[in-house]
Protein backbone atom coordinates (compact mmCIF):
# COMPACT_ATOMS: atom_id res chain seq x y z
CA UNK A 1 0.00 0.00 0.00
CA UNK A 2 2.97 2.31 0.41
CA UNK A 3 4.59 4.34 -2.30
CA UNK A 4 6.97 2.75 -4.74
CA UNK A 5 10.00 4.43 -3.14
CA UNK A 6 9.69 2.87 0.25
CA UNK A 7 12.83 4.56 1.43
CA UNK A 8 13.53 7.60 -0.59
CA UNK A 9 17.26 7.35 -0.25
CA UNK A 10 18.46 5.85 2.98
CA UNK A 11 18.16 2.87 5.19
CA UNK A 12 17.06 5.21 7.92
CA UNK A 13 13.42 5.94 7.08
CA UNK A 14 13.43 8.93 9.43
CA UNK A 15 16.24 10.77 7.68
CA UNK A 16 15.00 13.92 5.94
CA UNK A 17 16.22 14.56 2.40
CA UNK A 18 17.30 18.14 1.63
CA UNK A 19 14.80 19.92 -0.62
CA UNK A 20 14.73 23.49 -1.90
CA UNK A 21 11.79 25.86 -1.93
CA UNK A 22 11.43 26.86 -5.58
CA UNK A 23 8.39 29.10 -5.26
CA UNK A 24 6.19 30.21 -2.42
CA UNK A 25 3.27 32.62 -2.29
CA UNK A 26 0.07 33.21 -0.36
CA UNK A 27 -3.05 31.42 -1.59
CA UNK A 28 -5.23 33.02 1.08
CA UNK A 29 -4.56 35.09 4.16
CA UNK A 30 -3.26 32.11 6.14
CA UNK A 31 -2.52 29.49 3.51
CA UNK A 32 0.68 29.47 1.55
CA UNK A 33 1.64 27.54 -1.55
CA UNK A 34 5.06 25.86 -1.65
CA UNK A 35 6.73 24.39 -4.68
CA UNK A 36 9.79 22.36 -3.69
CA UNK A 37 12.40 20.27 -5.42
CA UNK A 38 14.57 17.56 -3.90
CA UNK A 39 18.12 18.90 -4.14
CA UNK A 40 19.54 15.70 -5.61
CA UNK A 41 18.36 16.02 -9.21
CA UNK A 42 18.32 12.31 -9.88
CA UNK A 43 16.12 11.68 -6.91
CA UNK A 44 13.97 14.67 -7.77
CA UNK A 45 13.13 13.21 -11.14
CA UNK A 46 12.79 9.57 -10.15
CA UNK A 47 10.60 10.41 -7.16
CA UNK A 48 7.22 8.81 -7.64
CA UNK A 49 4.04 8.94 -5.58
CA UNK A 50 0.30 8.43 -5.75
CA UNK A 51 -2.32 11.14 -5.61
CA UNK A 52 -3.53 11.42 -2.01
CA UNK A 53 -0.23 10.47 -0.38
CA UNK A 54 1.51 12.74 2.10
CA UNK A 55 5.05 13.71 3.04
CA UNK A 56 6.86 14.78 6.19
CA UNK A 57 8.41 18.22 5.95
CA UNK A 58 10.94 19.46 8.47
CA UNK A 59 12.50 22.78 9.34
CA UNK A 60 15.69 22.65 11.37
CA UNK A 61 14.95 23.73 14.92
CA UNK A 62 11.17 23.79 14.48
CA UNK A 63 10.50 20.11 13.86
CA UNK A 64 8.62 17.96 11.43
CA UNK A 65 4.97 17.69 10.35
CA UNK A 66 2.86 15.80 7.80
CA UNK A 67 1.45 17.53 4.70
CA UNK A 68 -0.62 16.27 1.77
CA UNK A 69 1.06 16.48 -1.59
CA UNK A 70 -1.00 18.82 -3.79
CA UNK A 71 0.88 18.23 -7.01
CA UNK A 72 0.37 15.30 -9.37
CA UNK A 73 2.87 12.53 -10.15
CA UNK A 74 2.00 13.10 -13.81
CA UNK A 75 4.12 16.27 -13.61
CA UNK A 76 7.36 15.01 -12.07
CA UNK A 77 10.27 17.05 -10.73
CA UNK A 78 8.49 19.50 -8.49
CA UNK A 79 6.36 18.85 -5.45
CA UNK A 80 3.63 21.20 -4.30
CA UNK A 81 2.03 21.77 -0.92
CA UNK A 82 -0.60 24.14 0.44
CA UNK A 83 0.10 24.83 4.04
CA UNK A 84 -1.98 26.60 6.65
CA UNK A 85 -0.21 28.45 9.43
CA UNK A 86 -1.12 26.41 12.49
CA UNK A 87 1.87 25.54 14.68
CA UNK A 88 5.62 25.63 15.19
CA UNK A 89 6.60 23.92 11.94
CA UNK A 90 4.20 25.88 9.73
CA UNK A 91 5.17 29.16 11.37
CA UNK A 92 8.79 28.42 10.55
CA UNK A 93 7.85 27.43 6.99
CA UNK A 94 5.98 30.70 6.51
CA UNK A 95 9.13 32.62 7.41
CA UNK A 96 11.14 30.79 4.75
CA UNK A 97 11.92 32.26 1.38
CA UNK A 98 12.45 30.92 -2.09
CA UNK A 99 15.73 29.03 -2.36
CA UNK A 100 15.73 28.09 1.35
CA UNK A 101 16.31 24.46 2.30
CA UNK A 102 13.81 22.24 4.07
CA UNK A 103 13.85 18.56 4.99
CA UNK A 104 11.60 16.18 3.13
CA UNK A 105 10.72 12.50 3.40
CA UNK A 106 8.02 10.38 1.89
CA UNK A 107 5.76 9.61 0.17
CA UNK A 108 3.64 7.99 2.86
CA UNK A 109 0.18 6.56 3.17
CA UNK A 110 -2.00 4.57 0.82
CA UNK A 111 -3.10 7.36 -1.52
CA UNK A 112 -6.10 7.23 -3.80
CA UNK A 113 -6.70 3.95 -5.70
CA UNK A 114 -6.62 5.57 -9.15
CA UNK A 115 -6.38 2.17 -10.90
CA UNK A 116 -9.79 1.20 -9.56
CA UNK A 117 -11.22 4.47 -10.80
CA UNK A 118 -10.30 3.81 -14.42
CA UNK A 119 -13.28 4.04 -16.81
CA UNK A 120 -15.42 5.36 -13.97
CA UNK A 121 -16.99 8.71 -13.19
CA UNK A 122 -15.24 10.81 -10.57
CA UNK A 123 -16.88 13.36 -8.29
CA UNK A 124 -14.48 15.39 -6.16
CA UNK A 125 -16.03 17.31 -3.28
CA UNK A 126 -13.79 19.65 -1.32
CA UNK A 127 -14.23 22.29 1.35
CA UNK A 128 -11.60 24.79 2.44
CA UNK A 129 -8.12 23.31 2.72
CA UNK A 130 -9.56 19.94 1.66
CA UNK A 131 -8.58 20.98 -1.84
CA UNK A 132 -4.92 20.41 -0.91
CA UNK A 133 -4.86 16.60 -1.23
CA UNK A 134 -7.63 16.28 -3.81
CA UNK A 135 -6.08 18.76 -6.23
CA UNK A 136 -3.54 15.99 -6.80
CA UNK A 137 -6.30 13.59 -7.89
CA UNK A 138 -7.99 16.25 -10.00
CA UNK A 139 -4.83 17.16 -11.88
CA UNK A 140 -3.85 13.53 -12.20
CA UNK A 141 -7.18 12.58 -13.74
CA UNK A 142 -7.12 15.58 -16.09
CA UNK A 143 -3.57 14.72 -17.18
CA UNK A 144 -4.76 11.17 -17.89
CA UNK A 145 -8.13 12.33 -19.16
CA UNK A 146 -8.81 9.36 -21.46
CA UNK A 147 -8.55 6.91 -18.55
CA UNK A 148 -11.60 8.28 -16.78
CA UNK A 149 -15.19 9.06 -17.75
CA UNK A 150 -16.98 12.10 -16.32
CA UNK A 151 -14.97 14.25 -13.91
CA UNK A 152 -16.77 16.70 -11.62
CA UNK A 153 -15.39 19.09 -9.04
CA UNK A 154 -17.53 20.63 -6.31
CA UNK A 155 -15.52 23.14 -4.34
CA UNK A 156 -16.74 25.20 -1.40
CA UNK A 157 -15.13 27.92 0.69
CA UNK A 158 -16.37 30.38 3.29
CA UNK A 159 -15.59 33.51 1.25
CA UNK A 160 -14.13 34.16 -2.19
CA UNK A 161 -10.83 35.25 -0.66
CA UNK A 162 -10.59 31.95 1.23
CA UNK A 163 -10.98 29.71 -1.80
CA UNK A 164 -7.59 28.14 -2.44
CA UNK A 165 -6.54 27.65 -6.07
CA UNK A 166 -9.37 30.01 -7.03
CA UNK A 167 -7.75 31.21 -10.26
CA UNK A 168 -6.68 27.71 -11.21
CA UNK A 169 -10.19 26.34 -10.79
CA UNK A 170 -11.77 29.29 -12.60
CA UNK A 171 -9.46 28.52 -15.51
CA UNK A 172 -10.48 24.86 -15.37
CA UNK A 173 -14.12 25.91 -15.73
CA UNK A 174 -13.34 26.65 -19.36
CA UNK A 175 -12.62 23.00 -20.02
CA UNK A 176 -15.48 21.10 -21.57
CA UNK A 177 -14.33 17.77 -20.22
CA UNK A 178 -14.68 18.87 -16.58
CA UNK A 179 -17.79 19.82 -14.66
CA UNK A 180 -16.62 22.45 -12.19
CA UNK A 181 -18.94 24.05 -9.64
CA UNK A 182 -17.65 26.59 -7.14
CA UNK A 183 -19.53 27.95 -4.14
CA UNK A 184 -18.93 30.29 -1.20
CA UNK A 185 -20.91 30.52 2.04
CA UNK A 186 -21.08 34.28 1.68
CA UNK A 187 -19.83 36.82 -0.82
CA UNK A 188 -18.33 39.83 0.93
CA UNK A 189 -16.88 41.21 -2.30
CA UNK A 190 -20.04 41.69 -4.31
CA UNK A 191 -18.20 40.43 -7.37
CA UNK A 192 -18.62 36.66 -6.98
CA UNK A 193 -20.17 35.25 -10.12
CA UNK A 194 -20.50 31.64 -8.96
CA UNK A 195 -22.83 29.93 -6.51
CA UNK A 196 -23.57 31.03 -2.97
CA UNK A 197 -24.44 28.56 -0.22
CA UNK A 198 -22.93 25.46 1.33
CA UNK A 199 -21.12 22.85 -0.76
CA UNK A 200 -24.05 20.40 -0.60
CA UNK A 201 -26.21 22.81 -2.64
CA UNK A 202 -23.96 22.01 -5.61
CA UNK A 203 -25.26 18.45 -5.83
CA UNK A 204 -28.46 19.73 -7.46
CA UNK A 205 -26.31 21.14 -10.29
CA UNK A 206 -24.81 17.75 -11.12
CA UNK A 207 -26.23 16.09 -14.19
CA UNK A 208 -27.75 12.69 -13.62
CA UNK A 209 -25.09 10.29 -12.37
CA UNK A 210 -24.41 6.59 -12.82
CA UNK A 211 -23.86 5.70 -9.14
CA UNK A 212 -22.53 2.16 -9.51
CA UNK A 213 -19.81 3.45 -11.84
CA UNK A 214 -18.96 6.51 -9.78
CA UNK A 215 -16.16 7.15 -7.31
CA UNK A 216 -16.67 10.11 -5.00
CA UNK A 217 -13.75 11.71 -3.14
CA UNK A 218 -14.35 13.99 -0.19
CA UNK A 219 -12.00 16.16 1.83
CA UNK A 220 -12.78 19.09 4.05
CA UNK A 221 -13.36 20.19 7.62
CA UNK A 222 -14.81 17.46 9.91
CA UNK A 223 -18.28 19.03 9.92
CA UNK A 224 -18.50 18.82 6.13
CA UNK A 225 -18.20 15.04 5.88
CA UNK A 226 -21.49 14.33 7.58
CA UNK A 227 -23.55 16.44 5.18
CA UNK A 228 -21.69 15.57 2.01
CA UNK A 229 -21.75 11.84 2.69
CA UNK A 230 -25.50 11.99 3.26
CA UNK A 231 -25.89 13.45 -0.24
CA UNK A 232 -23.58 10.86 -1.81
CA UNK A 233 -25.43 7.99 -0.15
CA UNK A 234 -28.71 9.54 -1.34
CA UNK A 235 -27.29 9.39 -4.87
CA UNK A 236 -26.80 5.61 -4.33
CA UNK A 237 -23.03 5.68 -4.70
CA UNK A 238 -21.78 2.46 -3.01
CA UNK A 239 -20.21 3.08 0.39
CA UNK A 240 -16.91 1.56 -0.65
CA UNK A 241 -16.71 3.94 -3.61
CA UNK A 242 -16.99 7.00 -1.39
CA UNK A 243 -13.42 7.88 -0.44
CA UNK A 244 -12.31 10.40 2.12
CA UNK A 245 -8.90 11.54 3.22
CA UNK A 246 -8.45 12.15 6.91
CA UNK A 247 -6.24 14.26 9.08
CA UNK A 248 -4.23 12.87 12.00
CA UNK A 249 -1.14 14.02 13.79
CA UNK A 250 1.50 11.76 12.28
CA UNK A 251 4.87 12.14 13.98
CA UNK A 252 6.75 9.47 12.05
CA UNK A 253 4.72 8.64 8.94
CA UNK A 254 5.96 5.05 9.03
CA UNK A 255 3.73 3.30 11.57
CA UNK A 256 5.92 3.55 14.66
CA UNK A 257 5.07 6.54 16.83
CA UNK A 258 1.44 5.61 17.43
CA UNK A 259 0.00 9.11 17.14
CA UNK A 260 -2.31 8.36 14.22
CA UNK A 261 -3.55 4.98 15.52
CA UNK A 262 -7.24 4.22 15.30
CA UNK A 263 -8.19 0.77 16.55
CA UNK A 264 -5.64 -1.52 14.92
CA UNK A 265 -4.89 0.67 11.94
CA UNK A 266 -2.33 3.38 11.49
CA UNK A 267 -3.61 6.30 9.47
CA UNK A 268 -0.11 6.81 8.08
CA UNK A 269 0.13 3.26 6.70
CA UNK A 270 -3.46 2.17 6.09
CA UNK A 271 -4.75 5.68 5.34
CA UNK A 272 -5.09 8.60 5.10
CA UNK A 273 -7.58 7.62 2.37
CA UNK A 274 -10.47 5.54 3.69
CA UNK A 275 -13.76 4.46 2.22
CA UNK A 276 -17.02 5.40 3.90
CA UNK A 277 -17.44 1.68 4.63
CA UNK A 278 -14.16 1.75 6.61
CA UNK A 279 -15.36 4.80 8.45
CA UNK A 280 -18.60 3.17 9.53
CA UNK A 281 -16.69 0.21 10.89
CA UNK A 282 -13.85 2.04 12.53
CA UNK A 283 -14.96 4.14 15.43
CA UNK A 284 -13.31 7.51 15.85
CA UNK A 285 -12.44 7.94 12.16
CA UNK A 286 -14.54 11.05 11.80
Amino acid at each position, binding site marked *: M*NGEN*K*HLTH*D*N*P*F*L*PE*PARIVRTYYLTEDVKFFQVRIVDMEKAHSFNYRPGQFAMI*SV*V*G*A*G*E*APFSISSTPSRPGLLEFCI*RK*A*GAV*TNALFRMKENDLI*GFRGPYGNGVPVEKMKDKDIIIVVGGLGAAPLRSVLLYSLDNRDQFRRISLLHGAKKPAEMIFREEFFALKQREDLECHLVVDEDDTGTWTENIGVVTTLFSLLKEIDPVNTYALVCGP*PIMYKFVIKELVKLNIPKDQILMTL*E*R*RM*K*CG*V*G*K*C*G*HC*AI*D*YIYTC*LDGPVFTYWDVIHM*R*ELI
Partner: protein
Amino acid sequence: MRIIKLKKDNLSPFLEIISVEADLWAPVQKGDKHVFKVVDDFSKVELNTTRTILPPRKIFLPPTFSMFNISEKGYKEDLSHIKKRILFGIHPCDIHGLLILDNLFKQAYLDPYYLEARKNTLILGLSCWPDEYCFAKSTNTHIIEEGFDLFFTDLKDFFLVWIGSSQGDDLIRLKPELFDENLTDKDIQTYINWHTERDKAYKWSINFTVLPDLIELKYMDPLWEKLGNSCLACGSCTNVCPTCNCYNIMDKQFLGGKDGKMIRHWDACTLEEYSEVAGGENFRKKRSDRLKLWYTHKLQAYISKYGKPSCVGCGRCIATCPVDINVRTVGKALLGEEEDAFWVRLNMEVTK
Protein backbone atom coordinates in the same frame (compact mmCIF):
# COMPACT_ATOMS: atom_id res chain seq x y z
CA MET B 1 17.49 -26.96 22.08
CA ARG B 2 20.62 -27.78 24.05
CA ILE B 3 20.12 -27.61 27.80
CA ILE B 4 22.95 -27.63 30.32
CA LYS B 5 23.42 -27.05 34.05
CA LEU B 6 25.07 -24.25 35.97
CA LYS B 7 25.73 -24.35 39.69
CA LYS B 8 24.40 -21.33 41.56
CA ASP B 9 27.87 -20.37 42.75
CA ASN B 10 29.12 -20.30 39.20
CA LEU B 11 26.72 -17.59 38.06
CA SER B 12 28.75 -14.61 39.27
CA PRO B 13 31.99 -15.81 37.67
CA PHE B 14 30.07 -16.43 34.45
CA LEU B 15 28.52 -12.94 34.43
CA GLU B 16 31.91 -11.44 35.12
CA ILE B 17 33.52 -13.20 32.18
CA ILE B 18 30.83 -12.37 29.67
CA SER B 19 30.64 -8.71 30.64
CA VAL B 20 34.22 -7.91 29.71
CA GLU B 21 33.28 -6.63 26.29
CA ALA B 22 29.72 -5.48 26.88
CA ASP B 23 27.66 -3.60 29.46
CA LEU B 24 25.82 -6.07 31.64
CA TRP B 25 22.30 -4.91 32.53
CA ALA B 26 20.57 -6.79 35.31
CA PRO B 27 17.90 -6.24 37.97
CA VAL B 28 19.19 -4.55 41.12
CA GLN B 29 17.46 -3.27 44.21
CA LYS B 30 16.21 0.33 44.25
CA GLY B 31 14.35 1.27 47.43
CA ASP B 32 11.86 -1.54 47.92
CA LYS B 33 11.61 -2.12 44.17
CA HIS B 34 13.91 -3.26 41.39
CA VAL B 35 15.32 -1.67 38.26
CA PHE B 36 17.42 -2.78 35.31
CA LYS B 37 20.84 -1.18 35.62
CA VAL B 38 24.37 -1.63 34.37
CA VAL B 39 26.17 -3.67 37.01
CA ASP B 40 29.82 -4.23 37.75
CA ASP B 41 29.33 -5.67 41.21
CA PHE B 42 27.80 -9.02 40.34
CA SER B 43 26.80 -9.79 43.90
CA LYS B 44 24.21 -6.98 43.56
CA VAL B 45 22.32 -8.84 40.82
CA GLU B 46 18.91 -9.80 42.19
CA LEU B 47 17.66 -13.23 41.25
CA ASN B 48 14.37 -13.18 43.13
CA THR B 49 12.66 -10.18 41.68
CA THR B 50 9.22 -9.89 40.24
CA ARG B 51 8.90 -6.90 37.93
CA THR B 52 11.29 -4.01 37.51
CA ILE B 53 9.76 -0.51 37.73
CA LEU B 54 10.30 0.21 34.04
CA PRO B 55 10.19 -2.57 31.46
CA PRO B 56 13.38 -3.53 29.58
CA ARG B 57 12.33 -1.53 26.51
CA LYS B 58 14.07 1.42 28.23
CA ILE B 59 17.34 -0.29 27.30
CA PHE B 60 16.41 -0.49 23.61
CA LEU B 61 14.57 2.80 23.31
CA PRO B 62 15.69 5.09 26.12
CA PRO B 63 13.03 7.54 27.40
CA THR B 64 14.88 10.27 25.48
CA PHE B 65 17.55 9.89 22.85
CA SER B 66 18.95 11.72 19.85
CA MET B 67 17.95 10.47 16.38
CA PHE B 68 19.94 12.97 14.36
CA ASN B 69 22.62 15.55 14.91
CA ILE B 70 21.55 18.66 13.06
CA SER B 71 23.97 21.17 11.61
CA GLU B 72 23.99 23.54 8.69
CA LYS B 73 25.02 20.58 6.55
CA GLY B 74 21.79 18.78 7.39
CA TYR B 75 20.80 15.74 9.41
CA LYS B 76 23.30 13.11 10.48
CA GLU B 77 22.12 9.83 11.93
CA ASP B 78 23.02 9.49 15.62
CA LEU B 79 23.30 5.95 16.94
CA SER B 80 25.69 6.94 19.72
CA HIS B 81 23.42 5.65 22.49
CA ILE B 82 23.61 2.11 21.14
CA LYS B 83 26.26 -0.07 22.74
CA LYS B 84 27.10 -3.74 23.03
CA ARG B 85 24.95 -4.99 25.87
CA ILE B 86 23.99 -8.13 27.69
CA LEU B 87 20.64 -8.09 29.41
CA PHE B 88 20.52 -10.63 32.20
CA GLY B 89 17.51 -11.43 34.35
CA ILE B 90 14.72 -10.63 31.92
CA HIS B 91 11.62 -12.69 32.62
CA PRO B 92 9.57 -14.60 30.02
CA CYS B 93 6.79 -12.00 30.00
CA ASP B 94 9.23 -9.19 29.24
CA ILE B 95 10.87 -11.22 26.47
CA HIS B 96 7.40 -11.61 24.98
CA GLY B 97 7.06 -7.84 25.33
CA LEU B 98 10.15 -7.41 23.16
CA LEU B 99 8.80 -9.87 20.58
CA ILE B 100 5.63 -7.76 20.37
CA LEU B 101 7.70 -4.60 19.90
CA ASP B 102 9.71 -6.43 17.21
CA ASN B 103 6.50 -6.90 15.19
CA LEU B 104 5.81 -3.20 15.27
CA PHE B 105 9.29 -1.92 14.61
CA LYS B 106 9.72 -4.27 11.66
CA GLN B 107 6.30 -3.62 10.16
CA ALA B 108 6.37 -1.85 6.75
CA TYR B 109 9.48 0.20 7.58
CA LEU B 110 12.43 -0.88 9.69
CA ASP B 111 13.17 1.30 12.70
CA PRO B 112 16.98 1.45 12.75
CA TYR B 113 17.22 2.75 16.33
CA TYR B 114 15.27 -0.09 17.87
CA LEU B 115 16.63 -2.79 15.59
CA GLU B 116 20.27 -1.76 16.00
CA ALA B 117 19.85 -1.81 19.78
CA ARG B 118 18.19 -5.22 19.56
CA LYS B 119 20.98 -6.56 17.38
CA ASN B 120 23.59 -5.35 19.86
CA THR B 121 21.92 -6.80 22.94
CA LEU B 122 22.13 -10.40 24.05
CA ILE B 123 19.09 -11.63 25.95
CA LEU B 124 19.78 -13.82 28.98
CA GLY B 125 16.38 -14.73 30.35
CA LEU B 126 15.62 -15.83 33.89
CA SER B 127 12.67 -17.74 35.29
CA CYS B 128 10.51 -16.11 37.95
CA TRP B 129 7.87 -16.78 40.52
CA PRO B 130 4.53 -14.92 40.35
CA ASP B 131 3.30 -12.52 43.00
CA GLU B 132 -0.27 -11.31 43.56
CA TYR B 133 -0.20 -9.05 40.46
CA CYS B 134 1.30 -11.43 37.88
CA PHE B 135 -1.06 -12.98 35.34
CA ALA B 136 1.34 -14.09 32.61
CA LYS B 137 -0.33 -17.51 32.57
CA SER B 138 -3.53 -15.87 31.27
CA THR B 139 -1.62 -14.27 28.41
CA ASN B 140 0.39 -17.45 27.87
CA THR B 141 3.60 -15.49 28.30
CA HIS B 142 4.79 -17.32 31.43
CA ILE B 143 6.79 -19.63 29.18
CA ILE B 144 9.17 -18.71 26.40
CA GLU B 145 10.41 -20.71 23.46
CA GLU B 146 12.18 -18.06 21.41
CA GLY B 147 13.64 -14.60 21.72
CA PHE B 148 16.57 -15.38 24.02
CA ASP B 149 20.22 -16.28 23.63
CA LEU B 150 20.34 -18.08 26.96
CA PHE B 151 17.58 -18.78 29.43
CA PHE B 152 18.19 -19.66 33.07
CA THR B 153 15.60 -21.65 34.96
CA ASP B 154 16.28 -21.20 38.65
CA LEU B 155 15.94 -24.56 40.41
CA LYS B 156 17.30 -23.45 43.80
CA ASP B 157 20.70 -25.20 43.81
CA PHE B 158 21.37 -24.87 40.13
CA PHE B 159 20.12 -23.38 36.92
CA LEU B 160 18.97 -25.21 33.85
CA VAL B 161 20.48 -23.19 31.01
CA TRP B 162 18.66 -23.30 27.68
CA ILE B 163 20.87 -22.30 24.78
CA GLY B 164 18.70 -20.40 22.32
CA SER B 165 21.18 -19.04 19.80
CA SER B 166 24.64 -19.34 18.37
CA GLN B 167 25.69 -16.21 20.24
CA GLY B 168 24.40 -17.74 23.45
CA ASP B 169 26.52 -20.79 22.75
CA ASP B 170 29.55 -18.53 22.23
CA LEU B 171 29.06 -17.12 25.73
CA ILE B 172 29.08 -20.61 27.21
CA ARG B 173 32.28 -21.38 25.31
CA LEU B 174 34.05 -18.51 27.06
CA LYS B 175 34.24 -20.75 30.15
CA PRO B 176 32.66 -24.15 29.45
CA GLU B 177 34.07 -25.66 32.63
CA LEU B 178 31.56 -23.65 34.68
CA PHE B 179 28.78 -25.75 33.17
CA ASP B 180 27.72 -29.35 33.42
CA GLU B 181 26.52 -31.08 30.29
CA ASN B 182 25.02 -34.05 32.03
CA LEU B 183 21.43 -33.76 33.20
CA THR B 184 20.26 -36.53 35.50
CA ASP B 185 16.74 -37.92 35.75
CA LYS B 186 16.58 -36.23 39.13
CA ASP B 187 17.38 -32.85 37.55
CA ILE B 188 14.58 -33.34 35.08
CA GLN B 189 12.16 -34.31 37.83
CA THR B 190 13.20 -31.22 39.78
CA TYR B 191 12.34 -29.14 36.73
CA ILE B 192 8.94 -30.83 36.33
CA ASN B 193 8.13 -30.19 39.97
CA TRP B 194 9.22 -26.59 39.71
CA HIS B 195 7.09 -26.10 36.60
CA THR B 196 3.99 -27.60 38.18
CA GLU B 197 4.32 -25.60 41.37
CA ARG B 198 5.09 -22.38 39.52
CA ASP B 199 2.01 -22.73 37.31
CA LYS B 200 -0.11 -23.25 40.40
CA ALA B 201 1.33 -20.12 41.99
CA TYR B 202 -0.57 -17.68 39.78
CA LYS B 203 -3.11 -16.08 42.07
CA TRP B 204 -5.56 -14.77 39.54
CA SER B 205 -6.44 -15.16 35.88
CA ILE B 206 -8.52 -13.58 33.19
CA ASN B 207 -10.03 -14.88 29.97
CA PHE B 208 -8.58 -12.71 27.24
CA THR B 209 -10.23 -14.50 24.33
CA VAL B 210 -13.63 -13.03 25.07
CA LEU B 211 -12.42 -9.44 25.59
CA PRO B 212 -12.39 -8.32 21.91
CA ASP B 213 -16.09 -9.09 21.64
CA LEU B 214 -16.85 -7.50 24.98
CA ILE B 215 -15.02 -4.32 24.06
CA GLU B 216 -17.12 -4.18 20.89
CA LEU B 217 -20.35 -4.85 22.77
CA LYS B 218 -19.54 -2.45 25.60
CA TYR B 219 -17.94 0.29 23.58
CA MET B 220 -20.60 2.78 24.63
CA ASP B 221 -20.99 1.36 28.14
CA PRO B 222 -20.97 3.94 30.98
CA LEU B 223 -18.07 2.04 32.56
CA TRP B 224 -15.70 4.00 30.30
CA GLU B 225 -17.03 7.32 31.57
CA LYS B 226 -16.58 6.16 35.14
CA LEU B 227 -13.01 5.10 34.33
CA GLY B 228 -12.39 8.41 32.62
CA ASN B 229 -13.57 10.28 35.68
CA SER B 230 -11.08 8.43 37.86
CA CYS B 231 -8.15 8.48 35.44
CA LEU B 232 -5.49 11.07 36.27
CA ALA B 233 -4.19 11.04 32.68
CA CYS B 234 -0.69 10.81 34.14
CA GLY B 235 0.65 8.37 31.55
CA SER B 236 2.17 6.03 34.16
CA CYS B 237 0.47 2.93 32.75
CA THR B 238 2.12 3.67 29.42
CA ASN B 239 5.56 4.31 30.87
CA VAL B 240 5.60 0.97 32.70
CA CYS B 241 4.01 -1.15 29.97
CA PRO B 242 6.45 -3.46 28.16
CA THR B 243 4.50 -3.23 24.89
CA CYS B 244 3.80 0.50 24.69
CA ASN B 245 5.79 2.05 21.87
CA CYS B 246 4.40 5.54 21.33
CA TYR B 247 6.83 8.38 21.05
CA ASN B 248 7.08 11.98 20.05
CA ILE B 249 9.90 13.86 18.36
CA MET B 250 11.17 17.38 18.74
CA ASP B 251 14.06 19.47 17.58
CA LYS B 252 16.40 20.71 20.26
CA GLN B 253 18.70 23.51 19.25
CA PHE B 254 21.82 24.40 21.11
CA LEU B 255 22.03 27.93 22.39
CA GLY B 256 23.68 30.41 20.11
CA GLY B 257 24.16 28.19 17.11
CA LYS B 258 22.50 26.39 14.29
CA ASP B 259 23.50 22.98 15.60
CA GLY B 260 21.09 20.79 17.46
CA LYS B 261 19.54 17.39 17.74
CA MET B 262 16.33 15.70 16.73
CA ILE B 263 15.12 14.12 19.94
CA ARG B 264 12.81 11.15 20.25
CA HIS B 265 11.08 10.71 23.58
CA TRP B 266 8.40 8.49 25.10
CA ASP B 267 4.86 9.69 24.73
CA ALA B 268 1.55 8.33 26.01
CA CYS B 269 -1.81 8.12 24.28
CA THR B 270 -3.47 8.82 27.62
CA LEU B 271 -2.06 12.35 27.65
CA GLU B 272 -4.36 15.12 26.44
CA GLU B 273 -2.14 16.60 23.69
CA TYR B 274 -1.48 13.21 22.15
CA SER B 275 -4.21 13.25 19.49
CA GLU B 276 -4.29 16.95 18.82
CA VAL B 277 -3.91 18.00 15.17
CA ALA B 278 -3.03 21.30 13.53
CA GLY B 279 -5.33 24.11 14.56
CA GLY B 280 -6.13 22.58 17.95
CA GLU B 281 -8.71 19.98 16.89
CA ASN B 282 -8.46 17.04 19.31
CA PHE B 283 -9.93 13.67 18.42
CA ARG B 284 -9.67 12.38 21.99
CA LYS B 285 -10.25 15.26 24.30
CA LYS B 286 -11.98 13.10 26.91
CA ARG B 287 -9.95 10.91 29.23
CA SER B 288 -12.48 8.11 28.69
CA ASP B 289 -11.79 8.21 24.94
CA ARG B 290 -8.07 7.97 25.54
CA LEU B 291 -8.47 5.05 27.94
CA LYS B 292 -10.64 3.34 25.34
CA LEU B 293 -7.82 3.70 22.83
CA TRP B 294 -5.26 2.23 25.25
CA TYR B 295 -7.40 -0.78 26.13
CA THR B 296 -8.87 -1.27 22.66
CA HIS B 297 -5.38 -1.34 21.24
CA LYS B 298 -4.05 -3.93 23.68
CA LEU B 299 -7.06 -6.11 24.36
CA GLN B 300 -8.95 -5.97 21.07
CA ALA B 301 -7.10 -4.59 18.07
CA TYR B 302 -3.85 -6.47 18.62
CA ILE B 303 -5.76 -9.70 19.19
CA SER B 304 -7.59 -9.32 15.88
CA LYS B 305 -4.29 -8.77 14.08
CA TYR B 306 -1.95 -11.22 15.84
CA GLY B 307 -4.28 -13.60 17.67
CA LYS B 308 -3.05 -12.65 21.13
CA PRO B 309 -3.29 -9.58 23.34
CA SER B 310 -0.64 -6.90 23.37
CA CYS B 311 -0.38 -7.55 27.10
CA VAL B 312 2.14 -9.92 28.63
CA GLY B 313 0.71 -10.19 32.13
CA CYS B 314 3.64 -8.54 33.90
CA GLY B 315 1.34 -6.76 36.34
CA ARG B 316 3.16 -3.43 36.12
CA CYS B 317 -0.02 -1.45 35.42
CA ILE B 318 -1.59 -3.04 38.50
CA ALA B 319 1.41 -2.22 40.65
CA THR B 320 1.67 1.31 39.28
CA CYS B 321 -1.67 3.02 38.56
CA PRO B 322 -2.44 5.32 41.49
CA VAL B 323 -6.19 4.96 40.97
CA ASP B 324 -6.29 1.27 40.18
CA ILE B 325 -7.15 1.44 36.48
CA ASN B 326 -5.33 -1.49 34.93
CA VAL B 327 -5.76 -4.58 32.80
CA ARG B 328 -7.20 -6.46 35.77
CA THR B 329 -9.84 -3.94 36.82
CA VAL B 330 -10.78 -2.99 33.26
CA GLY B 331 -10.83 -6.62 32.14
CA LYS B 332 -12.97 -7.66 35.09
CA ALA B 333 -15.29 -4.71 34.56
CA LEU B 334 -15.74 -5.72 30.91
CA LEU B 335 -16.49 -9.27 32.05
CA GLY B 336 -19.08 -7.93 34.47
CA GLU B 337 -17.15 -9.17 37.51
CA GLU B 338 -16.37 -6.85 40.42
CA GLU B 339 -17.54 -4.14 38.16
CA ASP B 340 -17.54 -1.39 40.74
CA ALA B 341 -14.55 -2.46 42.75
CA PHE B 342 -12.19 0.36 42.05
CA TRP B 343 -14.25 3.45 41.50
CA VAL B 344 -16.61 2.69 44.36
CA ARG B 345 -13.56 2.29 46.52
CA LEU B 346 -12.24 5.55 45.18
CA ASN B 347 -15.48 7.39 45.87
CA MET B 348 -15.45 6.00 49.37
CA GLU B 349 -11.95 7.24 49.92
CA VAL B 350 -12.90 10.65 48.61
CA THR B 351 -15.92 10.95 50.88
CA LYS B 352 -14.10 9.62 53.92
